[in-house]
């Protein structure tokens, strides 16, 4: 497992306790999983994402990632409508491992209530949770 000081934890995203990240991009929020999460999962072989247009509440399961013989659930950092999904992950699920905050993004959400972002963990709070 990566040491905590080896983890990439950008300043421009917020985190959930379940290791998703959310980045505000104008009126929408882009969502993926953290460097810690991808390291913990191991090699990702499949990403199951919802259809664009689906709506979920904060904390709802929106998809799964499959690493070898393991299916792990993904949860919404904020509630809202999924406006775009990262279709590249169909052919390149490994992007989640190699570039979790960039090419490995998963969905883009139009939040019902942007203030839900404020309740998410900032980098320091997330790091404290990891230090547990």
């Amino acid at each position, binding site marked *: *497992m990566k040491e905590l000081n080896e983890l990439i934890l950008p300043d421009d995203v917020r985190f959930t306790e*379940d*290791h998703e990240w959310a980045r505000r991009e104008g009126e929408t929020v882009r969502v993926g999983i953290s460097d810690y999460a991808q*390291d*913990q*999962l*191991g*090699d990702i072989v*499949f990403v*199951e994402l919802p259809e664009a247009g689906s709506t979920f509440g904060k904390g709802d399961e929106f998809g*799964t990632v*499959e*690493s*070898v*013989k*393991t*299916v*792990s*659930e993904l*949860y919404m950092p904020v509630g809202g409508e999924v406006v775009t999904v990262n279709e590249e992950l169909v052919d390149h699920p490994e992007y989640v491992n190699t570039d979790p905050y960039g090419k490995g993004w998963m969905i883009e959400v139009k939040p019902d209530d942007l203030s839900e972002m404020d309740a998410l963990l900032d980098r320091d709070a997330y790091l404290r949770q990891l230090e*547990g």
Partner: protein
Amino acid sequence: MPDLRIVNLEGTRRYISLLRAQHRLIAARREGTLSSDVALVLEHAPVFTLGRNATREHLKVSETFLTERGIQVVQAERGGDITYHGPGQVVAYLIFDLRAARMRIPDYISRLEEAMIRVARDFDVPAGRNPLNPGVWVGNRKLGSIGIAVRHGIAYHGLALNANLSLEPFTWIHPCGLTGISMTSLKEERGRDIKIEDVKSALSGHLKDLFEGRGIAVNPMSSLGEIAIRP
């Protein structure tokens, strides 16, 4: 690592009731009303299960054929493809908090494989890993399988080790979506009968060693209280 409570369930158990039990245990583990990890060691009544990326094309017979034999086909939440469970196969379901243990999933899977390899060794069967396909193998014959799901950082489902089950149902599927491999069992490899209770107890012992568990209980319904497993 937190304690691992190992529960050896007697009799054959329905897949669906164990799935519900696992859901209750995960919820309790997450809420903190269950402070230890739990391993349930058991045998299933005959059932085919489809993992999340399974395709029914890997089932070579019709569902009617199976229904006539009293065998259900159920959708499972674990990873992996199609497989068969039935009497004579030892299943261990671990409700295991990966975060509390600070364990990566590949390491966790490796420990589950190690538990099966050690059981095989106890019965003088030389089993090992295959770099291309997870699980436990004797040559190109599959002895044990792994399938895991993770909910809020807590792993459930687990492993299945073939002790003395009928291997015929595996001929009705492409196990785990693989073709050109065969399934085997401890009995098949040893050429003599194997007592299922001996396999369950060997597996419980090795899980206890590998996950630093404190004890093994047999059918402790009352101690599981609210989350008791119903037959």
